[in-house]
């Protein structure tokens, strides 16, 4: 009989909370009308600081900040924003909804995936990760993407490489 249900284990050790992060989370606990409202901002703060949210972080939120672990995990798994795995240094969210799709988003995503594959084939870790995301609500600038927190508009097969090169070299040998 299986002991664990639905546990997402990362092979990466979970980075520790910095004092600044702790202070930030503490401020959330009393900022809203109920303590529970601190859950979403706390998860954002952890992810902004450390890049992702580990199971260990959820346990810290419970044991040290009094946020019920079941409730935290519900929020963690419900909301698409939260990453439970360590991301690549430059995480790309590319819209693949209606207008962006019509304007060629899938071709650009495929091109990005091609770049990532080249790194992996060489046994290197790609500096980029990519996922298709729902409408980012900048449709007049379609196709649209986020690289970490930077928004890029009118991203095409033609200009994607030069945009990515600003973050990291695409030469997979390097």
């Amino acid at each position, binding site marked *: 009989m299986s002991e664990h249900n639905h546990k997402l284990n990362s092979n990466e050790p979970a980075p520790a909370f910095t004092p600044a992060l702790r202070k930030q989370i503490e401020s959330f606990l009393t*900022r*809203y*009308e*109920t*303590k*529970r*409202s*601190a*859950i*979403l*901002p706390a*998860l*954002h703060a952890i992810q902004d600081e450390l890049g992702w949210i580990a199971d260990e972080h959820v346990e810290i939120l419970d044991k040290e900040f009094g946020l019920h672990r079941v*409730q935290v995990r*519900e*929020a963690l798994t*419900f*909301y*698409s*924003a*939260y990453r439970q795995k360590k991301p690549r240094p430059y995480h790309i*969210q590319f819209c*693949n*909804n*209606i*207008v962006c*799709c*019509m*304007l060629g988003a899938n071709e650009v995503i495929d091109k990005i995936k091609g770049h990532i594959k080249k790194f992996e084939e060489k046994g290197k870790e790609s500096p980029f990760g990519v996922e298709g*995301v*729902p*409408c*980012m*609500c*900048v*449709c*007049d600038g*379609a196709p649209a993407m*986020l690289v970490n*927190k930077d*928004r890029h508009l009118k991203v095409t097969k033609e200009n994607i490489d030069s945009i990515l090169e600003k973050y990291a070299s695409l030469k997979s040998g390097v």
Partner: protein
Amino acid sequence: MGDTLTKVKITTAFEGKPNARALKTYVDNGGYAGLKKAFTMQPGQVIDEVKAAGLRGRGGAGFPTGMKWSFVPKDDKGPKYIICNNDESEPGTFKDRYITECNPHMILEGMIIAGFAIGANKGYIYTRYDFFEEIKWLETAIREAYDAGFLGDNILGTGFKFHIDHYAGAGAYICGEETGLLSSLEGKKGQPKLKPPFPAISGYLHRPTIVNNTETLAAVPWIINHGAAAHKTMGTEKSPGTKLFCLSGRVKRPGVYELPLGYPIEKLINEDAGGMLPGYNIKACIPGGSSAPILTAEELKGLTLDYEAIAAKGSMLGSGAIMIIDDSMSMVELLKVTVDFYHHESCGQCTPCREGTGWLANIMTGIMAGQGKKDDLQRMFEISRNMEGKTICALSDAAAMPTKSIVTKFGAEIADFIERGKRA
């Protein structure tokens, strides 16, 4: 019938102005005058003015705003809440982001007036988390407003107190549903709540709460400043005022257009937006965000942009997100993107939506993989039909309506695709 052609800038009044977002620019150009005027009125009068102006919810539902405000129990001692729904997520929509870019203070002013009207002393702005810059602009505006005395415990010496805080979402379209937003604000999953009770009676933490779309709140200062009658000179009788329309697709000038309601859609597309890019033709139009039933190019002829006219065509004005689908777009691809979206975004609470959105996406996956069946279209139609009107919130309907319209109006193209068993 009011003026449906003359463009008046209400919610995008500061578009293009240098230093548009700064408090000084806002105040120098009449900002917070609406609030000052409201303070000379009784709260009930403010509600009446908004009612008389005929302002309707600009987020998509189009519910009369003044009427919504009037549902808040007057003798409730509080706390009551004003929530600005800035969780813009309806595919095709980008107007609330634009209001935030042009004039964030207008949103704050609208919230404070709304708070005064219903007796609320606290407001939240709930913005989607990935509007990173936009959230910074809002937080700056909030700080500026506090510093200048427009927010706080004694606003402009009137004794009225109002506080605003910002709360970021975390990537869930369902948090754009007003009670889904409230659940999220309470630190929970963004699952909508049963109605009744309605938020005006029992909302955030079971307290009387008004949730209004950003654009709706942004329109309030102008209405209080200029009066309901002035508002009704614009737009149609049943849809007065202006609306922000988000035009996207392969038109020359996609973007946000503030237009009086009742404006002819062909004028918007061909004149204001410069028509289609060379080599592309209109195949279809989704007039109100992806939840709106699709219209064929034919159906755009003579169509005006107001709630009633679009409803008469079997679709909806919705959020005012007009997506022009050109002839490069496969309708199979469009249907797949649509059903995949709702499958991804269903919160999972109610069975018809949770299972129905999954089933529709599952069928489309089969079709894309060449495993489509002849009766898939009819099946999708029937599944959609039985997803409607059965759920806690409208996401299920939002998935069902476009599906039904696409398989009906473009059934031949999709059937052909299934027949050929090829990938698009």
